[in-house]
């Protein structure tokens, strides 16, 4: 069954209507349908266009700093006593996270479509910063929607966006976090649909976003595969990445889907613990539903109302997840697990002290799972973690946990 699924995978998913099995699709109001088809058409036109790809490669190389290194964490591997642990260093990208891979691609597409106004939603602020950055460089107007609660806990990133010339709009409705920022960005788009390009930061939203963002982020997995072959002569035994919407995870996973020997682990935020209900782990504890343009696993109550999520990391604090992850879960190609705030925080400190690398709290979830997984593997096995972002933005949060205030 799984073999057949993988065989069919690349030809069929998503299908022409943007479906990954029962997931994905285009669930938006009628006013946006035209814009979504327009985007899909533009993306189809440029995704294999040599000139477009050359411009993107150039930016990824000279502006972002790609390829990002694959680093063997020798100290940590030895300490855990199992698999050799490699870190895919997306934290070293310009702007400090994997998000910029995608904003470069979408902004170049916007330019070709003649749209000069960019909008985006952001949770931790990494996608907002990455969007404001490319907008500044391309001379585009930029408006970023951010939940009012996230504006408070990610003040530094808010200031970075403003320095870059973006307007940051705090969203006061609902739970005042990422999902509400997405609602507000969609409201802006529907109002300014003619001249505005919406740069979605994750592999969610209506078709073609999940597939398009995946394609832009797949550079992570393509590089990692090549780097592993160069360093070890073989594929890794496992891949591990944190999952909020799931863009860094799908970026790492996608080029390995056909390699059945490679196990994949997506790590969700278990917050205070799945059993407390205060978490952000829809794949682990949610049920399928429709939100923000696609059908996927959601955190919702029995009446279909979206429930508030919790995670120590703003980037994971989202009640949905990209539809392709929902499908990879159902067909059994990827495993989805979760770790708590406390486990992520411990891993944050562990990597910082053993390897001299301060990870983002989001990526620390992947690290925390590896601290359990690696010891169960043998020393001649290897795994790759997507170190999706650096921890600079989290100094405030981590310091506050220790009772410090800057």
């Amino acid at each position, binding site marked *: 069954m799984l073999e057949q699924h993988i065989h069919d995978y690349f030809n069929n998913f998503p299908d022409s*209507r943007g479906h990954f099995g029962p997931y994905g*699709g*285009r*669930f*938006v*109001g*009628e*006013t*946006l*349908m*035209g*814009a979504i088809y327009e985007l899909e058409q533009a993306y189809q036109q440029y995704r294999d266009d040599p000139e477009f790809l050359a411009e993107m490669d150039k930016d990824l190389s000279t502006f972002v700093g790609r390829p990002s290194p694959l680093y063997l964490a020798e100290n940590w591997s030895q300490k855990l006593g199992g698999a050799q642990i490699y870190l895919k260093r997306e934290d070293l990208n310009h702007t400090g996270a994997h998000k910029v891979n995608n904003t470069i691609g979408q902004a170049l597409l916007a330019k070709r479509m003649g749209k000069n106004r960019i909008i985006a939603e952001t949770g931790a602020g990494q996608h907002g910063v990455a969007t404001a950055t490319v907008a500044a460089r391309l001379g585009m107007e930029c408006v970023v929607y951010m939940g009012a609660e996230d504006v408070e806990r990610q003040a530094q990133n808010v200031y970075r966006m403003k320095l870059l010339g973006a307007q940051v709009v705090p969203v006061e*409705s*609902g739970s005042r976090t990422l*999902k*509400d920022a*997405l*609602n507000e960005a*969609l*409201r802006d788009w*529907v*109002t*300014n*649909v*003619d001249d505005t390009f919406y740069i979605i930061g994750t592999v969610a939203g209506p078709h073609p976003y999940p597939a398009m963002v995946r394609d832009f982020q797949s550079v992570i997995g393509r590089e990692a595969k090549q780097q592993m072959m160069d360093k070890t002569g073989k594929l890794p035994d496992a891949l591990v990445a944190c999952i909020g919407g799931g863009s860094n995870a799908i970026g790492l996973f996608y080029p390995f889907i056909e390699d059945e020997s490679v196990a994949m682990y997506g790590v969700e935020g278990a917050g205070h613990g799945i059993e407390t209900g205060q978490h952000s782990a829809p794949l682990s504890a949610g049920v*399928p*539903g*429709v*939100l*923000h*343009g696609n*059908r996927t696993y*959601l955190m*919702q109550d*029995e*009446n*279909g*109302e*979206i*429930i508030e999520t919790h995670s120590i990391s703003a980037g994971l604090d989202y009640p949905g997840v990209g539809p392709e992850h929902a499908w990879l879960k159902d067909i059994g190609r990827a495993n989805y697990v979760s770790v708590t705030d406390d486990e992520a925080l411990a891993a944050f400190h562990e990597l910082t002290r053993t390897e001299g690398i301060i990870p983002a709290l989001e990526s620390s979830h992947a690290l925390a799972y590896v601290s359990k997984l690696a010891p169960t593997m043998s020393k001649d096995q290897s795994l790759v973690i997507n170190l999706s972002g650096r921890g600079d933005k989290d100094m405030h949060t981590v310091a506050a946990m220790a009772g410090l205030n800057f």
Partner: protein
Amino acid sequence: MSRISQCFESLKTDGQTALIPYVTAGDPEPWVTVPLLHALVDAGADIIELGIPFSDPMCDGPVIQKACERALKNDVSIKQVLKMVKKFREKNKETPIVLMGYANPIEAMGYQNFAEMAKDAGVDGVLTVDVPPEESDEFRQIMDEHEIDTIYLVAPTTSAERMKTIASFARGFIYYVSIKGVTGAAALDVSEVSQKLSQLRETTQLPLGVGFGIRDGKSAAAVSEIADAVVVGSTLVRCIEEHADKLDELPAAVAGLLAEMRHAINARDLASA
């Protein structure tokens, strides 16, 4: 013939334009809704659009967002909304009710279960704003089986080609969204709307309703000139918000607003008869 089609037929015979108020169920308190619906009918509502509260109403502006938040504070669920319809039907068997909302609460119930309970409650139509025709094959089929009209939206951005598709799927009436934007956002441009409606009429025999941007008697009358139905939402919901702590005055105040629009439309209908 469905209750919605019957309603439009008889209005057409009388040379009248339908007036369709929207209110969010359970706003600001669950018990207010049924008396309010009766008051709206008394004030001249021909069809009622009853909003199913949703936590993430991304096609709505701040006025209806807040209405959803008020209703959800009282845990008004989709099943309770259906109970309200059933209660309304105890006294009113004629006025069609269209449920308006987002996909997820209906998905959570299951289409089949929703259709059965909605039919039993006396629901006549359903409009899910985030489900375009592309995603509604199964839903439409099940609603058809239960003789519930699936209402679809057409927007200023809808191409002529899409209009044809939508027209072929639509039941009851077609809802034209008069502006690019969310509910309650801006004033509509009557001549622009008129152009689109003529285009739409080439593809369908169904009555055409117009909503978004209608705020008072004047704009309601202007729209009644070109449309078969006038839909008014945010203006009424704002009035509900203003009366959230004066609940005894609320039904009369909201009904009063609607009555003004009814008079303006009737005067216009009479003048053109």
